[in-house]
């Protein structure tokens, strides 16, 4: 049974003078507990695909099921709620609220879900410890390194108990040490807690550690390798 089911998804950008066909009939099924990398040259449609899977963007054609729920036709507000309760996000940058501390950033997502303060704080502390930032809970994003910020983002993404975590080039701005560190944490979370990760990347070191690699080219899946 698949967690994410993408069926014949097309995405055409009509905003420009010449319509751009970014996805041309993508079929894809991702199961719970997978650790999947989406790779491909620049412009091949990785971000477009991740945005559609994450409910940030809608397919021009085709359908999307997440946890057996068809989200293809949800309205904006329903989609926001759906994302909040089902998906964790890690973006390449600008992940955190600059005026809040690491702990408050992680708590924020639970606040949106209506958790009470004690439980929020407890879980935020626990998650930050898991990503190795016990010492930095009260630091603001500007006081953290790029790698540390991404780790806070991972903790934040997990806070809501999402069904899976989407990460669009999470290591693109990181040096190799930080990249390895972040991947260690993601792999660990995947193996120990069965957290499903779907991420896009250009980085061969990241690709090497994925257990499934889907290669996109020109809006279509070119290969899909399970290791």
């Amino acid at each position, binding site marked *: 049974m698949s967690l994410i089911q993408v069926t014949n998804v097309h995405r055409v950008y009509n905003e420009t003078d010449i319509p751009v066909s970014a996805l041309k009939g993508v079929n894809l099924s991702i199961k719970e507990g997978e650790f999947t990398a989406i790779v491909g040259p620049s412009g091949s449609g990785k971000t477009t695909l991740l945005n559609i899977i994450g409910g940030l963007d809608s397919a021009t054609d085709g359908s999307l099921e997440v946890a057996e729920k068809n989200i293809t036709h949800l309205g904006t507000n329903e989609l926001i709620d759906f994302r*909040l309760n089902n998906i964790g996000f890690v973006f390449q940058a600008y992940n955190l609220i600059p005026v809040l501390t690491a702990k408050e950033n992680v708590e924020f997502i639970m606040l949106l879900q209506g958790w009470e303060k004690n439980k929020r704080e407890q879980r935020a502390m626990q998650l930050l410890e898991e990503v190795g930032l016990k010492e930095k809970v009260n630091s603001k994003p500007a006081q953290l390194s790029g790698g540390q910020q991404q780790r806070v983002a991972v903790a934040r993404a997990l806070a809501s108990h999402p069904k899976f975590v989407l990460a669009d080039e999470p290591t693109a701005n990181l040096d190799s040490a930080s990249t390895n560190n972040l991947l260690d944490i993601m792999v660990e979370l995947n193996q120990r807690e069965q957290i499903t990760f779907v991420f896009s990347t250009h980085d061969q070191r990241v690709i090497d550690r994925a257990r499934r690699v889907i290669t996109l080219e020109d809006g279509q899946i070119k290969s899909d390798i399970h290791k």
Partner: protein
Amino acid sequence: MIQKIAWKNIWRNKLRSIILITSIALGIWAGLFMMSMTTGLNTQRIGNAINSGLGHIQIHHPEYTKEYNPKYFIKDTASLRQTLSQLPAIKSWSYHNNFTGMIASPTGGYGVALIGINPLTEKNTTSIHTKIISGTYFTSDKKNQIVIGEKLARKLKVELNNKIVVTFQDTANNIISGAFRVTGIYKTASSSFDESIAFLNKKDLEKLAGTSSIVNEVIVFLDDVTDVAPTKNKLSTSLPMLQVRSWDDVSPELGYANELMSIALSVFILIIILAMAFGIINTMLMAVLERKRELGMLISVGMNKRKVFSMILNETLYISLIGGPIGIIGAWATINHFGKVGINLSSMGKGLDSLGIGSIIYTKLDSQMYLTITIVVVLTALLASIYPSLRALRMNAAEAVRQN
């Protein structure tokens, strides 16, 4: 926590927030201060007019005010006196007999209103005795004294103790004249008043005219201006044979000027409010647009539109709610200060003199006005924050989180 984020967000760009707060505060301050100047100006103008002779209420023979002919006088002064003394709102009153006439000195003659007064009772009502700049306000023993305004004295080129000739028409239309000695020169805030009104002892005038004691005019003063309308009504019912008029019946132009000023003021306030609204919209829009990515991220991770809206709304409100009170408290302090010491405008005082205001303005504002302005400011801030907040909702999550 959303309020907390909003609060912290406004300090991200301290300079910008402080500029916006300052401009809101200054706008409110300027608006309230302008209002207080106008109110002070008007209150003084009306107060000066009332104190120097208009009174709160005037009572005449109904025919008298048609052509100001002294032959129409109040006959039944006994019942008048009784009615007046029975109304507790009335502080004091005085009797006048008025003639129109001419005052001549060796250098010229000028038409004036001659007001016959009883110097003793007059001091309880009008304030001319406090405006004497040289000489005295009638000495008890001497006959044929006259007190004239400073401007008239200058025009006549007379000084204290000089004699001048007063000519007027008596109740039987005879022309009468007599010589009077200038014993006092007064100066009020109104140069046109000083130019055209002379005070004489009522008894001297009656003696010259060969009449018994007559009363053309009763000037009534109250303790509290707000009692004017009810007292006027009571007097009208008790004295059906007489004409009872309030100060604004007698001098409607004072009221018109009030209205004119308040129209001008409303336009001024409207401009300030509009400028404030555009300042808020512009600044907050900038704050929203430069945080496009961040707002997109918040919407992406699941912050719903209502919460994003309320966050930006809160940011705007906080700024207004800091600026507003600073402006209001600042204005209150300045208005209080200048309400006591006054603003000296003597450099342009000539113009103000002829308007009957005086060269020192004491600022003044009803507490009601502070409340009104507070409400207007809060409403403006609320309305002005709606657009930037809505704009924040238009963030497209997918677009905002894209890197290029």
